[in-house]
């Protein structure tokens, strides 16, 4: 853990502790710390500060195994290597097996050669140009996390040491607030955002650990609220794991889990093809491609109903309030 990071965390922690101990504010009654200053709490603002280390997503989108690392420099040495995918083996099997109740699929290898990395959605994504890196869907999602259409915040709990800590928690939330965006188009650190008032959009709490500055935690379910152009929906991801490289005020990495084919159709297929075919898909081909789903075997229908996914994410520190 870098010294500055520790100071930051301590400062935030001190601030929140102080606020919890009854500092007062004539106005709305909120309190908080002064991050990076070593000082105790200032007072003011609205909303009740949450007692954990907060982040706001500055970028979010599909992981592209053939992604251009110049576009995503922060991904280098973290979650993607040219020779493999640093995802998770979600099903604990290599290739999904052939037994009844499983979904046959090919896995990826991790850069270190570890087999069994699940990313079934990639076989789907790669078939549609509008879903490729920097194309329509990727751009829309990337913009949405910045402009408030799909704002996401994250909280790390129980962090005593940003480099090695054997017991931490992760929780992800939607927020109705928009992050602050700088002149470079990137989300700014140290904004204050309120977690979504509807607990539907609070993930279950994942537990994990930090080893050498890399946090791994899971499993957890999350429902992300978004309202992007013509699509007002919830994005439900289940049995997720998260891996984050923690930097000085930043966290970047991947979120890997399961996304149902029904949801993919609801969120991408139906609206983008039936409303002027904005994304330029052939809907028949779209539906056919979903037959490659690699998880969520449904005994009744005998079909696989979800894809394993990997989303990349980048986040910067933020103050979270209720």
């Amino acid at each position: 853990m870098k010294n500055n990071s520790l100071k930051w965390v301590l400062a935030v922690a001190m601030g929140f502790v102080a606020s919890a101990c009854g500092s007062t504010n004539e106005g709305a009654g909120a309190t908080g710390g002064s991050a990076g200053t070593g000082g105790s709490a200032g007072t003011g603002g609205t909303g009740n500060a949450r007692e954990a280390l907060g982040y706001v997503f500055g970028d979010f989108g599909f992981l592209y195994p053939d992604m251009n690392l110049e576009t995503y420099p922060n991904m280098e040495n973290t979650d993607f290597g040219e020779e493999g995918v640093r995802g998770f083996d979600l099903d604990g099997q290599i290739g999904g097996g052939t037994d009844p109740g499983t979904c046959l699929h090919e896995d990826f290898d991790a850069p270190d050669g570890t087999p069994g990395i699940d990313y079934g959605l990639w076989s789907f994504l790669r078939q549609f140009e509008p879903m490729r890196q920097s194309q329509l869907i990727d751009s829309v999602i990337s913009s949405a996390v910045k402009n408030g259409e799909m704002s996401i915040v994250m909280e790390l709990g129980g962090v005593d040491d940003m480099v090695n800590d054997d017991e931490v928690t992760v929780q992800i939330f939607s927020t109705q607030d928009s992050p602050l965006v700088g002149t470079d188009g990137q989300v700014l650190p140290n904004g204050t955002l309120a977690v979504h008032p509807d607990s539907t959009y609070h993930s279950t709490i994942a537990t994990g650990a930090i080893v050498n500055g890399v946090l791994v935690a899971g499993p957890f379910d999350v429902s992300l609220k978004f309202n992007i152009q013509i699509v007002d929906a919830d994005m439900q991801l289940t049995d997720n794991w998260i891996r984050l490289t923690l930097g000085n005020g930043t966290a970047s990495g991947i979120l890997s889990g399961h996304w149902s084919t029904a949801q993919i159709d609801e969120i991408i297929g139906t609206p983008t093809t039936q409303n002027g075919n904005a994304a330029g898909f052939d809907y028949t081909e779209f539906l056919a491609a979903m037959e490659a789903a690699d998880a969520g075997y449904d005994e009744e229908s005998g079909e696989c109903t979800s894809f394993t996914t990997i989303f990349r994410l980048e986040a910067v520190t933020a103050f979270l309030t209720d």
Partner: protein
Amino acid sequence: MTHNQRGRCIAALLAVVAVACAGSDTSGGAPATEGGPVALRRLTSQQYTQSIHDVLGNDIVVPSRIEPDARLEGLLGVGASFVSVTPSGFEKYEAAATAIAEQALGSELRGANLSCEPSSASGADDSCAREFIATIGRRLFRRTLAEDEIARRVAIAASSATELGDFYAGLEMALTSLLVSPNFLFRVEEIEPDPADGSRLRLTSTSVATRLSYLIWNSTPDDELLDAAESGALLNTGNLAAQAARLLDSPKAEAGIRAFFSDLLTFRRIDEGLVRKSPTEFPAFTLTLAGDAKEQTLRTIVDHLVTNELDLRELYTTRSTFLTPSLGSVYAVPFGGGGWGPYEFAEDGPRAGLLSHVSLMSITAHPGRSSATLRGKFVREVLLCQDIPDPPANVDFSIVENTGGELRTARERLGEHVTNDACAGCHQLMDPIGLAFENFDAIGAYRTQENGVDIDASGNLDGQSYDDAIGMGQALRDHESLGPCMTRNLYRYAVGRNPVSGEQALLTFLDDRFAASGYRWGSLIDALVVSDGFLTASGQREAEEVAQ
């Protein structure tokens, strides 16, 4: 009655009592002084807008393209006494006047601005036009119009209405004529012999009313003040003090104090987009942040000086302020919600006082780096009224600009720079002050290191040592020149010029009053507006005179 109102009333009462007790000493013991020369003072763009709104309504959209203001001796308020109107500027004023007149007498607003009903909407009505011109003209010219001034515009309204077949269109022409008149565009400060002392010249009562109104409201006098002026009541300093108290009690007084501090702190540079930062190095410095930063400081000043009537010197140590979420992000403090709210910086945090605000730290920095020199110069010149000579033309700034070189911190770079004897003298005045703020980068964000090296923010301000910006703020608060400098700056702003030599005793007296009040803003205004410097003049400034 609020605490503030009570304070104003007591001040007014004391002024009246002082008048009664002191006989001819109408300014509470102030030394007899002859004010400096008066001049035509062109309305600043802010005064132009505020005057239009006060006379014709806040719904008027005032065109922003009018003659630009000029800063002289550090103040737009002084520069306004030394500018004229260029031919292109006149065209802008004419275009603005036309646009304003169309709105003021358009179907939506004419009811609020015109108290009479024309006999015919399709032709001339001299009686109704006269009533409008006399009423509105008085507010615009800040005095009752002479008969020929009214008659000329009634004729314009009549001929235009007849030609255009529209009473209101005709009246728009007359209003435009008022709005492009020098009597509106310039504050015409007139003088007359003082009947009590034929050797002295005093401002006419309407000129005093105008000075008072633009000082306290940054706008044109209202009818009550004009009535007091034209009845002669304002020539009595007790009445004048009472009017000043009334103006200070008005909600419009906030615009006045904002205007003064905006001028003094050069916030116009933010308004005009002249405070720029590298978008890659300082992405947080958005237009929103810049506007909020200015507003934060002004809100803090108003809250401190007006709402809470606190010691002006503590503006440099106060932890009380107001924030928005975007400011909270730069200050790295939690501040949610959608808008403004009060905030207290942490007791043991690194911020206190105006000089820790994003606004001033940004203004006194370069686009890509902080500037201890600019910050020190600002404190010396603006807050302590000490002159710093301009640098020689051939100065080599390469050392201080090379932030990526071997000299890692500003202190190291400036230390090397001042080995040049030609630079050392002035830099020794500025840099120790500015280095106190090195923990604030070019946009005022806090940092503990520069280029990986711990920042040393310690220093000494004219004998008082400090370890950091907090200590520097305390040293500034305790500096013997802080109060007198504010007195001098407000005086210059009020009279539109630098003090002349004979006015120093008055400034000393005003500062004594200011200090005796615990540096309460209202007390300084109270003392200033009944002083000879405010009420008398040595004559009209000659055209070739420059600011002294």
